[in-house]
């Protein structure tokens, strides 16, 4: 019983590792904050232990010998007390000064990490919706803007300046491995700076309760080499290809003529809806519906056939496609690489 409870206590430690970890230190801002956090833990921990130790000592002493207020402990004793108090106060003042200075310098170096060494900075715009992330990239070296959803790609070692907006309610952008949280507030512009230091796959998550599907509002983050990032950008900037097989063509026709194109955008086609995730390269993404399902044929079937069964309450309606229509639409979506 007791052992089980202890084991349960260990569970939260699982949060200290992996693709969604505050202590990962994979981004400059996150790493800065981690060292500040460690310093705070050490200083406040020492103070805590000292206070408890004094308390215990006092309790033990009191139990041993009864003292009477009328007893005069003598001048020497009083001088000792004064010295102890002065030392204690000085110790606290020193601790507070160290913490204040450390906070100040951490803040400065976080700000410095956002300033690019050679003027190279990536501008990204993220708009939160119930319950998915709309992502646009702007770049001075590329004329085109690219738009994707629920998937962020970042080149390692280049600062990213991200503007954050919301269309409906307050959400919060949080990629624990890279940096702290920042809210996305309707009618207001916020921003956050990231400087990834290591390549890898990370997971972000909305960190402000935003309704029924708040838990299914995740974000895949890929930090990659500059070359890989450039290749990804070029591929995302391409318009969608016209399908070649008859089945995919039938799916294309359905998507263009029916409900889908009203909400979704597919570049290079007549689908120009702006209120749902851009599907131009949907099949190249790692997951579906903001991390609800991994990307794959079976999951595409599940999602298109009944989005309300997979993610109840989300803003894509149950349409009720006929089986042939479903086959065709999934075949078409799979070509959107």
């Amino acid at each position, binding site marked *: 019983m007791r052992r089980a409870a202890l084991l349960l206590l260990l569970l939260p430690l699982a949060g200290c590792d992996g693709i969604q970890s505050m202590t990962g230190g994979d981004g400059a801002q996150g790493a800065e904050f981690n060292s500040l956090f460690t310093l705070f833990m050490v200083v406040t921990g020492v103070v805590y232990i000292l206070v408890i130790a004094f308390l215990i000592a006092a309790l033990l002493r009191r139990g041993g010998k009864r003292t009477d207020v009328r007893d005069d402990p003598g001048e020497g004793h009083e001088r000792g007390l004064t010295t102890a108090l002065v030392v204690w106060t000085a110790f606290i003042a020193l601790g507070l000064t160290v913490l204040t200075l450390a906070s100040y310098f951490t803040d400065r170096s976080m700000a410095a990490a956002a300033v690019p060494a050679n003027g190279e900075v990536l501008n990204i715009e993220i708009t939160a919706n119930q319950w998915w992330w709309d992502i646009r990239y702007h770049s001075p070296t590329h004329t085109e803007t690219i738009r994707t959803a629920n998937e962020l790609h970042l080149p390692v070692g280049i600062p990213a300046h991200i503007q954050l907006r919301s269309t409906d309610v307050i959400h919060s952008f949080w990629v624990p491995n890279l940096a702290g949280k920042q809210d996305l507030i309707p*009618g*207001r*512009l916020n921003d956050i700076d990231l400087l990834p230091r290591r390549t890898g796959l990370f997971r972000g998550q909305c960190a402000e309760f935003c309704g029924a599907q708040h838990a299914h509002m995740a974000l895949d983050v890929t930090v990659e080499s500059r070359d890989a990032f450039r290749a990804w950008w070029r591929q995302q900037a391409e318009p969608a290809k016209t399908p070649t097989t008859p089945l995919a063509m039938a799916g294309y026709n359905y998507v263009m*003529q*029916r*409900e889908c194109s*009203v*909400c979704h955008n597919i570049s290079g086609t007549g689908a120009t809806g702006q*209120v749902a995730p851009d599907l131009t390269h949907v099949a190249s993404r790692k997951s579906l519906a903001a991390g609800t399902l991994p990307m794959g044929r079976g999951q595409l079937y599940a999602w298109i056939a*009944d989005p*309300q*069964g997979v993610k*109840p*309450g989300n*803003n894509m*309606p*149950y*349409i*009720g496609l006929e089986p042939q229509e479903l086959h065709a639409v999934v075949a078409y979506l799979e070509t959107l690489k």
Partner: protein
Amino acid sequence: MSSRSRASLALLVLVLAGCDREERNARGAPLPETGPAQQAALAATHSDPRAKQYENVSFQISQGQRLYSWMNCVGCHAHGGGGMGPPLMDEKWRYGGRMEDIVATIQKGRPNGMPAFEHKLTEQQAWQLAAYVRSLSAQPRQDVLSGRADEMSNTEPQTLDERKPVKDAAGSEPKGPVK
């Protein structure tokens, strides 16, 4: 147990009522969708039982309000006041103002420029829109209206506000620089 504590226990049980959650039908089709049999029944009674499940229902009106912007009804009807399309917040209806009529207008379109949304919207969405359109014109029940306003408002976001000098009780501005 004293009667006092029994009474308080009974009261505590009341709190459990808070655990109930509004049932929402996410997939639509609260009643069989309009097949031939229903069509015939409709023609006989001239009223669709589904109307009751959407009209004056808070969640449906709120969804309708969202779709009203998403489907760009705003472009032609503004926020009810009308533009290139007729106003929707008055009591005049060219094609009838019952839920069923509005759903028919949205699905089939109307000759003088109202596009048909059949196969662009699901049936459920058409009903939700109709519930919202009805809430524009009928005296809406305050308790079912959405607290959200989707139209433009003439108050600037607070973040764009310039700091105004504070006036004192007499209405004159205080002296000295105000930043």
